[in-house]
C-alpha cells in the first residue's frame, strides 16, 4: 500500500506524515536544536562517560584503565566515605526539618495583615540572595568563638559559648545555624502558596466554629502540602549537593567533622586526581538521591492535590 507520492528511502515514521506535519517536525527540531546539541554533548555523553570512568583507574594524564567494580568496593572500605555519608545525612536530617519549619512559621506570620509587611518580607528574604561565598565568609567571622558577636552575646547571658566551626562537636550545628539565615527562598514559595488558598475555605471553617489551630491543621496545611513537598524535594537535592558554603566555612574540618559528600568527591577528583573513584562516588550520589526522592514520592500520601477543573 505504498503511496506513489512518497519517495522511496524515507524513514517509516516520516512516510505516514503529511507535508505540514513533516515541516513542523523539522521546524520543531530546528528550534530546540541548541538544547538538543547541549543535551547530547553536556549531559548524555558525560553521563555515559562518567559511568565508564567509575569502573576505571583514571588520573586524566594517562588513559583510563579498566578495574571492574574495584572503585565501588574500595568505597565501602573507605572510612572517609562512610564519614562523609554520615555528615551529609546528619546535615540533611536535622537541617531540612528546621529550615522547612522555620520558613513556614515566618511565612504564616507574614501572611497576617501586619504593619510594615513589605519591609519584614524584604528583611527575611534578603539573606537568601547574598552570594554563598560572601555569606560563608560572614558566618565564619560572625561565629568566631573569640572575636564574634554570637559568643559575646552568650557570654552576656552567662553562657560560655562553644567553639562553633572550630569544634568538631559543634561544627555541624553551626553550619545548620548559618544555613537557616537563607530560609527566605522557601519562605517566599510558602507565601505564594498561602496566597493561593481560597478565602472561602477559611470562611467555611469559621462558620463551623474552627479554632485557630484547626484552621491551620485542616485548611492551611492540606492546601499547602504540594508546596511543602516541593520545598522538601529542593531541600533534599540541595543538601545532598552542599559544597560552596562548607568549602569556605570549614574546608571539611575540624577532624573531618564537616567533610560532606560533594566536598570529598571534589577533593578526589580535583585534588587527588582520582577521577575514576570520584565518578563512582557521583553514581552512588545519583543512586542515593534517586532512592530518597522515590521514597518521598512513595510516602507522599499526605499531599493533597486539588482536583483540577
Amino acid at each position, binding site marked *: 500500500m505504498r503511496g506513489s507520492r512518497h519517495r522511496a528511502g524515507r524513514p517509516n515514521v516520516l512516510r505516514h506524515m503529511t507535508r505540514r506535519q513533516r515541516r513542523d517536525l523539522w521546524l520543531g527540531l530546528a528550534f530546540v536544536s541548541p538544547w538538543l546539541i547541549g543535551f547530547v554533548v553536556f549531559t548524555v555523553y558525560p553521563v555515559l562517560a562518567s559511568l565508564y570512568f567509575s569502573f576505571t583507574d583514571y588520573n586524566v594524564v594517562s588513559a583510563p584503565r579498566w578495574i571492574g567494580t574495584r572503585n565501588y568496593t574500595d568505597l565501602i572500605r573507605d572510612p572517609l566515605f562512610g564519614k562523609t555519608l554520615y555528615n551529609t545525612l546528619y546535615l540533611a536530617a536535622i537541617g531540612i526539618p528546621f529550615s522547612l519549619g522555620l520558613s513556614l512559621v515566618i511565612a504564616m506570620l507574614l501572611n497576617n495583615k501586619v504593619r510594615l509587611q513589605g519591609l519584614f518580607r524584604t528583611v527575611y528574604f534578603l539573606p537568601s540572595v547574598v552570594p554563598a561565598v560572601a555569606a560563608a565568609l560572614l558566618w565564619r567571622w560572625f561565629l568566631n568563638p573569640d572575636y564574634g558577636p554570637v559568643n*559575646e552575646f552568650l557570654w552576656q547571658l552567662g553562657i560560655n559559648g562553644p567553639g562553633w566551626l572550630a569544634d568538631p562537636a559543634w561544627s555541624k550545628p553551626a553550619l545548620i545555624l548559618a544555613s537557616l539565615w537563607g530560609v527566605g527562598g522557601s519562605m517566599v514559595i510558602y507565601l505564594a502558596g498561602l496566597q493561593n488558598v481560597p478565602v472561602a475555605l477559611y470562611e467555611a471553617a469559621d462558620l463551623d466554629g474552627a479554632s485557630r489551630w484547626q484552621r491551620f491543621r485542616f485548611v492551611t496545611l492540606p492546601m499547602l502540602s504540594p508546596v511543602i513537598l516541593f520545598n522538601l524535594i529542593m531541600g533534599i537535592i540541595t543538601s545532598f549537593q552542599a559544597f560552596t558554603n562548607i568549602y569556605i566555612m570549614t574546608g571539611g574540618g575540624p577532624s573531618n567533622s564537616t567533610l560532606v559528600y560533594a566536598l570529598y568527591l571534589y577533593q578526589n577528583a580535583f585534588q587527588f586526581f582520582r577521577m575514576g573513584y570520584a565518578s563512582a562516588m557521583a553514581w552512588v550520589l545519583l543512586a542515593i538521591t534517586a532512592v530518597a526522592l522515590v521514597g518521598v514520592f512513595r510516602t507522599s500520601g499526605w499531599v493533597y492535590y486539588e482536583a483540577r477543573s
Partner: protein
Amino acid sequence: MTRRRSLWSVAIYVVLVAGAVFFLTPFVWMISTSLKTDAQVFAIPPEWVPAPVMWSNYWRLMTEIPFLRYLANTVFVTVTSVAFYVASSAVVAYGFSRIRWPGREVLFYCLLATMVLPPQVTLIPQFVMFQKLGWVGTFLPLIVPALTGSAFAVFLLRQFYSAIPNDISDSARIDGASEWQIFVRIVLPLAKPALATASLFIFIWTWTDFLNPLIYLTDDRLYTLAIGLQQLASTRAAAWPLLMAGSLLMSVPIILLFFFAQKTFIAGVSTAAVKG
C-alpha cells in the same frame, strides 16, 4: 474577642521583630567589620561601632588585591552567560511550545530530568572534555555551555509561551509569516516579563557561582569575585575588614537588583514552585 485578637497581633509583631533582628544582625556585623581597623577587629569584647571609621579599607581592597579585575571578569562572565542563556532558551522554548511535533513531549521530559540530575555526575567528563579542548584556564567552559540553554529558563518561558493564544500565530501564518518571524515579532515581545525573570535568576546564579570558576579558572588574572575572595580568605586569613568589604561589594549588585525587580523576583520564585 477583640482583646484576644489584638493580643495575638502584638505577639506576632514581637516574634517578627525578634526574627528580623536575627536576620539583620549579620549584615550589620559585615558592614561594621568592613570599616574597622585591623586591630579593632580583634577587640575583646567585640565592638559594634568602628572607631575610627576606615573608609580607606575599600580603597585598600582595590589596590592591595586586583579587586577591580575580579569585578570586571565577573561582569564579563555574567553578562555573556545571561545573554547566551536567555537567547538560546527563548528559541528552544518556542520549539517546545508553539510547534507540535512527534517526540516533543519525550524530549521535554528529558529536559526536566536534567534539572534533578546531580551536577557531580557530569562534572568530571565535562572537565576532561574541556581539558582536551585546551579550554581549562579560560572563560570558555563557563560561557560556551550557556549557548545550549538553561533547563529552568526553557521551562519558565515555555509556560509563558503556552499561555499566548494560538489564533495570533495562525493569522500571522495566513499572512505568510515564517515561524521565525512569528517568534521574533509576535511571541518574543509578548514574553518580556518571562525573559526578565529568566535573566534575573541566571544573573544571580552566574554572579554567585563558585564551583565552576573554581574548577576551570586556574589563572589569577581570570578569577571572578567568588574565587578572588576565597583566595584572599585563604592567603590572608586575618584580613577581616578587607574580606567583609569584599563580601559586601560582591553582594551589593544582587541586593540592588532585588530592590529594583522585587516583583519579577517573587513572581519567578513562585511560578517555579506553585505552577511547576
